[in-house]
């Protein structure tokens, strides 16, 4: 099922900022194979048939039920989908993994349980475990016999994960490590059998271990959380807990590599889960808006509600474009790396797109929060009642902006990672920035392009938004040099622009590909969504750039930059009111999310 792997050349991570892509080069949900679609169906049926009807029991902390559901999901193949066959998995592609993640997102609590089980609690063992440990644990995790958890965070070290205080020391006979310390916010903590634990050897060597539940390892009481109450979250106390040396993950002192690389995967999976949640929220909002009558009409007939429904759909569709474009990139890179076939090269293939993974995490979690918020609003008073689904969706959604790296950390990582890649010569950011500066200083001829291809105007907006991103990034780098890392507000501003660039371009390419394959008539509403999205995105880009430039530049330089900005963000607004009505009407007719 490696539909996307044909040519043995990878697209460089971060190159979306400086290069142009054609629609044929990107993977989109419209490129799903029949098997992909069937996987989506069965995963959705499982969530709707087995998990969602039991969410109240899960929220009462029925972990026996949680274990049963994990095992049922495991039997269908959801945990081991992307795990190699030799370790009990199915060896399917990352696209399938994304599709399963999406379906899991239909219950945020269960998605969290499964995210630990099949993601951060499993992958460190699969990618960094000794052969012995892999054979011992992975097949039993894939079947759900063993429940896993990932223990990185501590009370005093969250975003600053490497400041952990937990310790590990090698026993005198050299056969095992002895771990001591306390961990916080451990998903599945209440009933997990196996833990991936990070601790420091010899006081400073941050290292990963596999630790089995045993005497001395105790979880605290369930945390009283705002949402995802149907997932277990506890503290974890390790009191001279022993684990054999075969259970060391990777090398002593290299735990940070595990933590960061696994998070890259966790981030795109979280994005997929958010996307699945958004589809459900949008469908439920459409249904409610069709049922609820006020002033003698269903509220879905009012423009104010149509605006919300259309915007929910647009963000869902754009988010989906981002996820599968990125998964397509990862899949291609894995196809090239498969020659080496070792875990390290696979992780490098994924790390190539670390900035894209961070962007997906931030964008999708915020889109999901938007959808949850508007869902509550559409439900009105009933949206505030726990008897209706909007209230739970709203509470459940909020955590996505916090875990797997807060959105602030992820935002700041994006420009940092791109600059580092540029410095290492992997990404031609500097020549692109230089070319842009030359363009700014040379006299401008009025552009005579009369490109009439599909979404030509939006494609131009995206191209120009890339220039804005380079302008902001370049100016900031020049001014602060290495100290840029300390300028968080500037990094956040640059990051917001970069993310909008990636989102706009991904949406445009998806719609162009769809229009090319199925005709512009079939794609009409998708084109509407892209126009609406780009119209708003370019306004965000302009505001973000103006404020950021004003903070890092002044005088003539600032005036020159602002003039360029004005030129780059010039946009004749489309009729977004009419477009949003059309987008909403199709869903109102079908009584669900239809894109």
């Amino acid at each position, binding site marked *: 099922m490696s539909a996307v792997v044909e040519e043995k050349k990878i697209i460089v991570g971060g190159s979306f900022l400086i290069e142009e892509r054609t629609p044929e080069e990107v993977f989109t949900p419209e490129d799903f194979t029949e*098997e992909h679609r069937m996987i989506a169906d*069965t995963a959705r049926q499982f969530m709707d048939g087995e998990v969602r009807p039991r969410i109240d029991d899960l929220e009462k902390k029925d972990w026996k039920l949680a274990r049963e559901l994990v095992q049922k999901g495991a039997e269908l193949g959801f945990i081991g989908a992307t795990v190699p066959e030799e370790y009990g998995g199915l060896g399917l592609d990352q696209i399938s993994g994304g599709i399963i993640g999406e379906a899991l997102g239909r219950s945020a609590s269960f998605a969290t349980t499964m995210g630990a089980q099949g993601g951060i609690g499993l992958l460190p063992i699969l990618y960094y475990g000794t052969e012995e440990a892999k054979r011992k644990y992975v097949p039993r995790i894939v079947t759900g016999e063993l429940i896993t958890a990932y223990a990185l965070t501590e009370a005093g070290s969250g975003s600053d994960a490497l400041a952990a205080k937990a310790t590990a020391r090698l026993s005198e006979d050299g056969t095992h490590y002895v771990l001591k310390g306390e961990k916080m916010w451990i998903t599945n903590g209440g009933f997990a059998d196996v833990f991936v634990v990070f601790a420091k050897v010899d006081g400073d060597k941050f290292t990963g271990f596999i630790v089995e539940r045993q005497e001395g390892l105790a979880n605290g009481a369930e945390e009283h959380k705002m949402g995802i109450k149907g997932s277990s979250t506890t503290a974890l106390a390790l009191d001279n807990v022993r684990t054999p040396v075969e259970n060391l993950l990777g090398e002593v002192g290299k735990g940070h590599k595990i933590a960061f690389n696994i998070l890259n995967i966790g981030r795109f999976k979280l994005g997929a889960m958010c996307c699945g949640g958004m589809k459900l929220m949008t469908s439920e909002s459409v249904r409610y808006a069709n049922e609820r009558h006020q002033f003698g009409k269903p509220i879905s007939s009012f423009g104010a509600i149509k605006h919300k429904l259309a915007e929910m759909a647009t963000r869902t569709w754009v988010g989906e474009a981002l996820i599968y474009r990125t998964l397509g990139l990862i899949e291609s890179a894995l196809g090239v790396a498969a020659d080496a076939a070792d875990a390290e090269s696979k992780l490098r293939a994924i790390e190539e797109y670390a900035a894209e993974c961070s962007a997906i995490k931030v964008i999708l979690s915020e889109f999901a929060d938007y959808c949850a918020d508007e869902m509550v609003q559409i439900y009105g008073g009933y949206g505030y009642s726990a008897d209706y689904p909007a209230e739970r969706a709203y509470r459940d959604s909020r955590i996505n902006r916090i875990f797997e790296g807060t959105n602030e950390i992820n935002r700041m990582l994006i420009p940092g990672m791109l600059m580092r890649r540029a410095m290492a010569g992997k990404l031609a950011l500097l020549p692109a920035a230089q070319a842009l500066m030359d363009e700014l200083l040379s006299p401008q001829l009025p552009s005579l392009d009369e490109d009439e291809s599909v979404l030509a105007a939006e494609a131009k907006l995206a191209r120009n938004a890339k220039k804005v991103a380079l302008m902001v990034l370049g100016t900031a780098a020049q001014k602060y040099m290495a100290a840029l890392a300390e300028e968080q507000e500037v990094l956040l501003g640059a990051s917001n622009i970069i993310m909008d660039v990636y989102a706009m371009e991904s949406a445009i390419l998806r719609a162009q590909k769809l229009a090319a394959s199925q005709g512009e008539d079939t794609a009409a509403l998708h084109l509407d969504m892209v126009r609406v999205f780009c119209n708003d995105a370019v306004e965000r880009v302009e505001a973000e750039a103006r404020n950021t430039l004003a903070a890092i530049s002044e005088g003539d330089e600032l005036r020159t930059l602002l003039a360029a900005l004005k030129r780059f963000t010039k946009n004749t607004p489309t009729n977004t009111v009419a477009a949003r009505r059309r987008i909403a009407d199709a869903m109102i007719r*079908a*009584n669900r999310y239809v894109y």
Partner: protein
Amino acid sequence: MKIVVLMKQVPNRDAILRVNREEKWIEEGDLSFEVSESDGYALEEALRLKEKKGGEVVVCSLGPQRVKSVIKDALARGADRAIHILGDNLEHVGPFATAKILAEAIREEQADLVLTGLQSDDYGYGQTGVIAAELLGLPHATIVIEVDYSGEQLRVKRELESGWYQWYTMRTPCLLTIQSGISQIRYATLKGIMAAKKKEIREVQPAADAAAAGEFQTVTRIYLPLKQKQTQFLGDGDAKRGAAQLAEKLRNEARVI
């Protein structure tokens, strides 16, 4: 044991239905499709029998290319192979022609057991299985809620009216129409989905005489129930007589008590 399961694709149950312009059927443009519910239970029964007795499960479905999704899904759940009777507009022929086409397509299979849902979720005639049994010369049982083949003979439990049931001993080969909700339908596993790729789907044309079998019925008009609003004054001012008349109307006209 060879079991053939007749399955039909119908509009998704959550769909908002609109009558088409000709008033002969519904608008299919916006619709998504799924398997008719009781046919899904028929497949599940077949797969369970196969697990106990061994043999083969063959799925047969009639309709345009989109029907493939029902077939693929059945193969992913565990059916061994499929017959797709391909033809446009065939999904709108009457129950006799449908049964005739299906019967001719599976006749050569010489199945030990033919299973299908008791009625389709769209037209809901409830006749296709019964007529197919007749055309194949097989005995049949309808509204089957339990199939027991643990002993020598096949026993089936039928649902009668007013909470009555009936156990029936059948000789094979025979045809059963299965009631919905009698078991927990399995999900397609990812392994099953990948394995389905390699399973045979034989496309056949409807037998010429079957398609021309003629219609014993035609759909004249499809319409939504008409809503009427009417006010009647009961009892001519006498409350007691009014109450009696109201009770009579609720019982005999509205049939709600």
